[in-house]
């Protein structure tokens, strides 16, 4: 009997392992020991007497991590990277010499050369706006601010690897040093940011396939890091008995973040599924079967009633155990449920703050709920808004979305770039979420305005509010469901699928 039970357990475990390993979205950071023998091309420039370089220390550190390091000059051709597993670009490398040499490289790049960000397509080109190097000689007072960063990407894989929390931490040891930041675009993950500006990223990453600046699609993973040439040795760390204090461990994170960022960069990227709506539908049906789902609508809505019915039918056809609630029902309707969907027919005003705190996943079909749900700031038409509403928007109606997070399961396997979302141009809502959000699709021409995005459970949402469970926004203005294209339905299914899956590193790996 016991033998049979053990056999069954083993069979189940093997099956689970097989599912995980075969999952196209699977990604996992390499263990520290797995770095041994990985080939790194370390690109540096000429030493500057006035600004001592820590490049030799970095080289030694990389070697101590197990990397096989080959040194290269900024003047060397891009072919120097052939065979490498990772390209590391120091800020001593001259960005005017580097130019776009490594931008197209299919090899992951890790760099702390902020001046190289624009040519790498990691940020826009405007100094002090899209990127900046804060040197205490020029910006003495500000350089003190950069001794502190905020752990915005606590649920990113880099963040999780070091136990990053949504709070301040020390970047460099005490003395103000030169620090670089970048303002990454659409598809980036911001791990840490500076000066209370969510987009001013000290550490940020692009997954392979993520949309970078100017619609450039990341050919491989890219990571930007805040340090500068001479302050690797000042990356914070704590040792000995003080390291037993969890508060100190959470504060002195610089070196661990450096190591985790390197490790993430060189790890295999997420391999997204190919676009296949019927396969996606079937996969969703398998996990939806019997799941208790609460669909909150405005009963007898003037507009959108029919669309709500069709959404409900779709959800039922997938196998969900669906319960319909009215917007005025108490939040206790969510008790015993496994997920909630808030219809765009609901009145934001009447819905109040309900479902914000529920400990089960919530899908919001109305972007204007973003502030009450703590998914974005409170400034209407700045933090969230809409395209195509004649009285409330200067922007014309839209039918396309710009896929910026093609690597993520919520993107349904669609390629980066424009996809037709609804059949006719109409109202589409947008939100500018916090950096911790997983961005899937933006509105065309306004990359910062996200139409589809999600927050992982535990992610820091607006004002430091921690997501009690997964949260996602999907732009289904009142009647839009009935107007969805095939790609639009696929995106809807993929978003629901991600929402109800158990959070694990397989989905948020690249964030």
């Amino acid at each position, binding site marked *: 009997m016991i033998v049979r039970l053990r056999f069954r357990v083993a069979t189940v475990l093997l099956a689970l392992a097989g599912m995980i390993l075969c999952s196209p979205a699977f990604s996992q950071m390499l263990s520290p020991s797995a770095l041994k023998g990985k080939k790194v091309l370390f690109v540096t420039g000429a030493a500057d007497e006035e600004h001592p370089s820590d490049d030799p220390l970095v080289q030694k550190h990389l070697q101590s991590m197990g990397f096989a390091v080959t040194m290269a000059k900024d003047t060397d051709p891009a072919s120097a990277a052939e065979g490498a597993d990772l390209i590391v670009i120091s800020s001593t490398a001259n960005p005017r010499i580097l130019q776009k040499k490594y931008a197209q490289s299919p090899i992951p790049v890790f760099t702390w050369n902020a001046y190289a960000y624009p040519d790498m397509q990691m940020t826009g080109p405007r100094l002090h706006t899209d990127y900046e190097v804060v040197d205490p000689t020029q910006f003495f007072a500000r350089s003190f601010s950069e001794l502190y960063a905020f752990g915005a990407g606590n649920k990113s894989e880099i963040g999780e690897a070091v136990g990053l929390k949504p709070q301040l931490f020390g970047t460099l040891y*005490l003395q103000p040093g030169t620090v670089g930041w970048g303002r990454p675009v659409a598809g980036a993950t911001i791990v840490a940011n500076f000066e209370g500006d969510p987009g001013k990223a000290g550490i940020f990453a692009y997954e392979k396939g993520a949309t970078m600046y100017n619609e450039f699609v990341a050919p491989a993973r890219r990571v930007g890091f805040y340090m500068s040439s001479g302050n690797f*040795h000042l990356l914070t*760390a704590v040792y000995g008995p003080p390291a037993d204090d969890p508060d100190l461990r959470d504060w002195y994170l610089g070196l661990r973040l450096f190591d985790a960022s390197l490790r993430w960069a060189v790890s295999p990227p997420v391999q997204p599924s190919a676009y296949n709506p019927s396969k996606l539908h079937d996969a969703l049906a398998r996990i939806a079967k019997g799941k208790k789902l609460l669909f909150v609508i405005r009963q007898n809505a003037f507009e959108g009633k029919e669309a709500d019915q069709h959404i409900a039918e779709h959800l039922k056809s997938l196998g969900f155990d669906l319960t319909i609630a009215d917007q005025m029902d108490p939040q206790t309707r969510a008790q015993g449920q496994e997920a909630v969907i808030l219809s765009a027919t609901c009145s934001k005003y009447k819905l109040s703050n309900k479902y914000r705190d529920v400990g089960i996943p919530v899908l919001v079909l109305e972007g204007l709920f973003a502030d009450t749900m703590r998914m974005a700031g409170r400034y209407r038409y700045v933090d969230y808004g809409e395209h195509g509403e004649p009285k409330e928007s200067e922007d014309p109606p839209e039918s396309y979305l710009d896929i910026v997070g093609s690597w993520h399961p919520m993107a349904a396997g669609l390629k980066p770039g424009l996809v037709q979302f609804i059949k006719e141009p109409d109202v589409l809502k947008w939100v500018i979420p916090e950096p911790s959000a997983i961005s899937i699709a933006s509105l065309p021409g306004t990359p910062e305005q996200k139409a589809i995005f999600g927050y992982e459970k535990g992610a820091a949402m607006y004002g430091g509010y921690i997501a009690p469970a997964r949260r996602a926004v999907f732009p289904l203005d009142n009647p839009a469901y009935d107007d969805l294209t095939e790609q639009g339905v696929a995106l809807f299914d993929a978003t629901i699928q991600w929402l109800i899956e158990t959070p694990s590193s397989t989905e948020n790996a690249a964030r």
Partner: protein
Amino acid sequence: MEKSKQSIRAAIGILPLFASFFIPATAHSADNGYHLLARYKLTGHGKTGNIRVDSEARRLYVAHGDRVDVLNADTGASVGILPANGSNDIVLAPDFKHGFISNGTAASVAMFDTATLKVVRTIKLATQNPGAMEYDPEVKRVFVAATGGVAAIDANSGEVVGSVPLEGRLGHLISNDYGRLFVAAEDHDVIHIVDTDALKFLGDFPIGTGTGPSGVALDPSGRRLFVACTNGRLPIIDTDIGFTIEDLPIGNGPTSDVFAFTPQGKGGWKGAVFVASADGTLSLIKMNAFISYSHAGEVKLQPGIQSVAFDSKTHRVFMPASENSAEILVVGQ
């Protein structure tokens, strides 16, 4: 209590907090003003060990093989001789007018009366090769580095009150007077940390690019630990978090003592560190701020120096040497 601690520190010449010692802020290797002033010849043979200065009593104590030479700090004249057995180090416990000598070849520590210069008790240790010692006025214990760990002796009674097993070949050790003892582990390239009250090993600090840590000094105000390493590096560690904030060049070879002092006020260096290395280099490290130190020159002396003591009254530095004959090098401005 604080006054008492300061006077103790001044007496043993480790941290003279009120020293008015002035070093020009622009001092460099060529013009730091330090040079050899005198040589105090020692009688007898044998390799010299560590040196301590009692600035109040104007005495120098020099470990010297089968004896400890006690000299007049101003003239070098012999004041007395204490018997020893492979002496390595001396510490003074002014609270009790006791001194202690580590007898390296006898696995013992001699406790003597500093007034009479008579040994009043011989303390047998359970471990071999007692070497460097440190007196902690907070717990009133003398800590002795020996093979396999550190022994703790009550500075009043001379009783061994316990020991802490530690790995590696132990070099110099120093306490911060509020619960922690830092012990150089020469062949492990770490600093062991010991709880001076509970007598418990707490963990290790890494030492940056240094290898072979031998001498240590502490600036208790800045909480900076200076670790002189045989590979010619001086990691400077923030003892609050074990972080090496600087890593400066010094002379090569072992050093048994490092000397540090705290800010000196306007017009002078904010602080300084002296390191006597076996290759004959007296390295001067200047403190620019608690987070910034720089190499500020060196004085080339004869090979074999390893220990350094600072006289808070005359601002002179004493170093035993024994390349040709045993002597004390006196360096000052």
